[in-house]
């Protein structure tokens, strides 16, 4: 179904009353019985005319433009989405009324899934004077010199190596409530001096949470440690994937219902879009955030909590009430310009066991480094130290001496100092002086021994040959090698004696599914933009005044006059030909005072519809009247009284009131497309 078909289908789906109301307004008197397709065709012909289009567009004011852009830019927004989008700066009631008005003016329509859309017959005419992201958000491209990041560490790969090294040391301890212990705060401060004492707890809490969700960190008896097997197996993970996933996982708590891939996609797009944009005001930034969020199935955000988290991480800046994203996020941490002397090696390993590296060190090339070296400090350059303990840690992760030396030699700009080689070798020899294995010992007679030694499918399961006929097998693959033994003709296989085998380690794959970012918003920004007022206000004001003057001269009966006058105000009248008496006698939408039954009917009607709201007037004091907007949820009967239960808007607080205590009740449509009420 193409867009125009979708629009016409939406018209078909209007209640008869609403449908006729629209048709009579634009086409004049409608004879019954009427033929909907015919009427729709006539309507299409009407609004396809150039003059009518121009008129419709000329009557769009600033507020209309805001709503229209929200509808166009949000991804299939519902009415509630538009409410939430403008929640901070436009009153709920005004949004609600504006949406209905725009529907009546055929500028927007609602599909069966309740999503709002721009009338496809008018989209091209609406761009770019009406429909452009810059009518909604003040986006300005920043000059290069404005794009200096204040904080770059999160986007530098050595920072993450340093972070993992710190956790691998086992020195980061947390309290039972998950907060960092004071000594650990100091330890973090020593290693990351760019973090102030106040910033460390929330910063580390975010990172610990994020990395734990990635499976990279674990908690063990109050200490945060690395899941080394998980880290070392991530050979094919790109830096971009790693970083985006890390940030996404840090923010996970504020998106509990969203998939990780959606959060990653959202962040990618947010970073790319804002990479070259000047700082924005709070409203603009909220809007941009929500537009992007809507395209990644992230709930629209009304709070500052995610901003707070991003500020803590050094991704979002907030100064003088203006927001900007760290420009490094836009490039996702592309390394700084390299030292011209050396394009590939960023590390100096000195004879005092100090390893100094610049920001260009890549995580993928130096994965072992976090395990083999202890982080000392992070600054303009990062410094690590090779210690006995850190090298032993590397050996524990099955990194061989040769691999370790190879890594160091590959990374180092200079020849490895001789004493380093000798000392690390010494440490390895000491490490190997005692070997501890875990597995299942098989003791085989001469015949079975030959089978085991020669069978190719068994070799991968043998950890070590302890002696002639004595083999140490891998406990986690017991099922597999037992099958091989059976298939090799060893029909009688005894049960394993002694302790139970180890559980198989959990899956060591980080699920990174960030996908490709959607170019939607970037292309929107790049479209030609025409600033200025949405319409020639003078011309449209004059037109409306002319209409009113003509109406005044027609001397219609009062109800018809008031109805037409209201329609002029609502900009539903596009031509002088529409000034005819097509009074629709709308059903009462208001009940007050002693009209208990009227109030009851209105409550029932509102409950029956999906979106209708109730405007409730309550007299708290003799001369004070409270007016509340309620989304009705239930009507409870208590004796001969009814209690209206619902939620106030936009506060979302519980409401419960006896109908007898309600002074005036008004039913408000939240959409033209609500079912018949």
């Amino acid at each position, binding site marked *: 179904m193409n867009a125009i078909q979708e629009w016409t289908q939406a018209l078909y789906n209007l209640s008869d009353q609403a449908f006729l109301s629209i048709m009579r307004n634009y086409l004049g008197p409608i004879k019954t019985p009427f033929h909907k397709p015919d009427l729709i065709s006539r309507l299409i012909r009407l609004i396809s005319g150039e003059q009518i289009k121009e008129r419709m567009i000329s009557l769009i004011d600033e507020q209309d433009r805001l709503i229209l852009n929200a509808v166009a830019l949000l991804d299939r927004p519902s009415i509630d989405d538009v409410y939430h989008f403008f929640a901070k700066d436009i009153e709920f009631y005004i949004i609600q009324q504006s949406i209905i008005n725009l529907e009546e003016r055929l500028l927007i329509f609602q599909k069966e899934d309740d999503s709002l859309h721009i009338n496809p017959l008018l989209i091209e005419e609406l761009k770019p004077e009406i429909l452009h992201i810059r009518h909604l958000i003040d986006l300005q491209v920043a000059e290069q010199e404005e794009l*200096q990041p204040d904080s770059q560490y999160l986007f530098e790969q050595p920072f993450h190596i340093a972070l993992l090294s710190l956790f691998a040391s086992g020195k980061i301890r947390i309290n039972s409530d998950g907060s960092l212990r004071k000594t650990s705060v100091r330890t973090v401060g020593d290693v990351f001096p760019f973090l102030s004492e106040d910033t460390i707890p929330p910063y580390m809490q975010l990172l610990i949470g994020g990395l734990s969700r990635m499976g990279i960190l674990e908690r063990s008896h109050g200490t945060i440690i690395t899941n080394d097997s998980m880290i070392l197996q991530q050979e094919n993970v790109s830096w971009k994937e790693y970083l985006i996933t890390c940030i996404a996982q840090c923010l996970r708590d504020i998106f509990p219902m969203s998939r990780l891939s959606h959060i990653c996609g959202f962040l990618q797009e947010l970073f790319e879009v804002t990479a070259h944009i000047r700082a924005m005001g709070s409203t603009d930034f909220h809007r941009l955030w929500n537009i992007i969020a809507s395209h990644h199935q992230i709930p629209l955000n009304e709070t500052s909590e995610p901003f707070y988290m991003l500020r803590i991480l050094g991704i979002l800046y907030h100064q003088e009430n203006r927001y900007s994203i760290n420009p490094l996020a836009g490039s996702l941490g592309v390394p700084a310009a390299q030292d011209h002397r050396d394009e590939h090696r960023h590390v*100096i390993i000195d004879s*005092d066991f100090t390893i100094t590296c610049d920001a260009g060190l890549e995580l993928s090339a130096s994965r072992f480094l976090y395990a083999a070296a202890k982080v000392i400090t992070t600054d303009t350059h990062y410094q690590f130290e090779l210690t006995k303990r850190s090298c032993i840690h590397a050996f524990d992760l099955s990194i061989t001496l040769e691999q370790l030396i190879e890594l160091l030699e590959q990374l180092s700009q*200079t020849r490895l100092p001789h*004493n380093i080689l000798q*000392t690390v070798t*010494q440490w390895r020899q000491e490490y190997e002086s005692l070997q501890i294995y875990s597995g299942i010992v098989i003791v085989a007679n001469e015949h079975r021994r030959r089978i085991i030694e020669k069978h190719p499918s068994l070799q991968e399961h043998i950890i070590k040959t302890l002696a002639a006929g004595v083999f140490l097998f891998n406990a986690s693959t017991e099922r597999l090698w037992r099958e091989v033994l059976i298939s090799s003709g060893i029909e009688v296989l005894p049960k394993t004696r002694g302790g139970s085998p180890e559980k198989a380690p959990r899956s060591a794959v980080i699920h990174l599914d960030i996908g490709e970012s959607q170019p939607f918003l970037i292309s929107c920004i790049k479209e030609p933009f025409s600033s200025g007022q949405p319409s020639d206000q003078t011309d449209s004001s004059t037109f409306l005044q002319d209409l009113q003057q003509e109406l005044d001269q027609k001397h219609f009966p009062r109800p018809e006059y008031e109805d037409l006058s209201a329609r002029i105000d609502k900009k539903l009248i596009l031509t002088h030909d529409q000034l005819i008496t097509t009074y629709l006698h709308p059903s009462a939408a208001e009940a007050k005072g002693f009209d208990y039954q009227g109030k009851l009917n209105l409550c029932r009607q509102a409950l029956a519809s999906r979106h209708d709201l109730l405007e409730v007037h309550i007299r708290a004091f003799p001369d004070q009247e409270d007016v509340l907007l309620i989304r009705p949820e239930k009507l409870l009967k208590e004796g001969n009284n009814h209690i209206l239960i619902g939620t106030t808007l936009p506060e979302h607080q519980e409401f419960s009131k006896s109908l007898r205590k309600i002074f005036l009740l008004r039913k408000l449509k939240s959409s033209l497309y609500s079912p018949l009420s």
Partner: protein
Amino acid sequence: MENQSYDRPLIIQSDKTLLLEVHSPSFNEARNDIIAFAELVKSPEHIHTFSVTPISLWNAASAGVDAQEIIRRLLVWSKYDLPETVSFYIDDIISRFGAIELHPVEDDTDQFYLEVKDPKITQEILHRAPLMEMLTPRRDGYYLHAYDRGNVKLQLIKLGYPVDDRIPLHVGDPMPFSLRETSVSGYPFVIRDYQKEAKDAVLGDLGPGTGYGTIVLPCGSGKTVVGISVMQALQTHTLILTTNVAAVHQWINELIDKTSLTRDDIGEYSGDKKIIRPVTVCTYQILTWRKDKNSDFLHFSIFKDYNWGLVLYDEVHTLPAPVFKVTAEIQSMYRVGLTATLVREDNREDEVFSLVGPKRYDIPWRELEQKGWIAEAHCYEIRIPLDESLDLDYAIGSKRDKFRISSENPLKKPVIKQLMLNHPDDYILIIGQYLTQLKELAKELDLPLITGSTPNKRRDELFTAFRDGKQKILVVSKVANFAIDLPDASVAIQISGTFGSRQEEAQRLGRILRPKEQGSYFYSLVTRYTVEEEFASNRQKFLTEQGYKYHIEIWD
């Protein structure tokens, strides 16, 4: 953002640490620029680390290097942009130098005038009760009594404000003497260029603001000669403070050997003797001796009872805390501190700065090494297996026992013998911690042994014999930690024990860093797979930080 130049070898960290790449073509030039305002922390093979501290900045300021110049030099050599925090820090700290000056009061030698140029500092001083007890406010400053001079300077530096002392120094009783062209021992005696520069740096034009300070020279580079040179320039009664009796005797010997001073001109003030002469050499220990914790320091009067014109603090980095008190009171004298390092284990560098004086001269040991003034040192660690018969004792022993067993490993003896054979013509010190081990070794190798209980006379005899070449190998206990001057020692073999503090480590090596045709050797014997290795690894790290070449060998 990185500066687009390949020969900028300096990396400036935001914590005021400077990393300097050794292999850069600009290394020497950059180092010479930054050494004026930064302290060398460590100097291994590839990257030297410096630290910018308040003391280092004030030392620079006192030498006429201002903040603008410091920042200019950093920018010239820095690979990256200068962190704002660093430039702000430099500006702030340097600005404090000269903000407070101490001036004499006309016609009143008992009072001085403390000029405070910054009202904010004045406000801060007003809120410090201990300071205000010593100060009487006047317009733009304060008056203070002469005897409070040192304490006021001390209090202010602890607040973070150095005092530029502009008061002319007191001239002591004259003591004319000259330097010999040929020493008594028959060698030509020439003051080396850097020694003259050091002397000139501290004395300056003898005007206000000069005549006091600290000279930093590596071990073995002739600090004693610098001290003598200062004495000769001032020609005044001199009190020399040093670390122990052996050092006292060394000073006395040097003075007699190289100057026209006679034995009668020089007094010894120590545990053994209490002789005051125009030139008196004294130990720190005797000064800080008292009967008990609550008694006075009986020997402090040596400072005030005589009209000294110059005080020399040898190894000033070891200046005992009680001596600071007296040092505070004798601010009127010319005073020079001599040391191989300004870094103190107790972090009281600021007190040395304010009471003895700022660093006036410093030269990297590598430069002296390259010029041949000190020897190149090679450090070896020889790892020896533990005697099998001790395996079980070691395994079940306490930590203390483990250390002793590994230190006294009998399998070290053949190694020592082999090393002695490898260095037949060298002067060798065999150094250890455990007397039993040393005694056994000395007996087995038929070598003289010097311990703490060796009488001073016997000790001096052995040192003289060593110096004269009559006895080329000595076995010594920890006493060798203290200042001994053995010009011809070229090999040290440590068989057990730690060296103690890092400064003592450097000092010990300094004993063998005398100029020689071939390099000096330092051997450390360590039992493999024992707790001794832990100390060995700390030592290795320290020595490589100092830039020594370090080799590890396994003795199978």
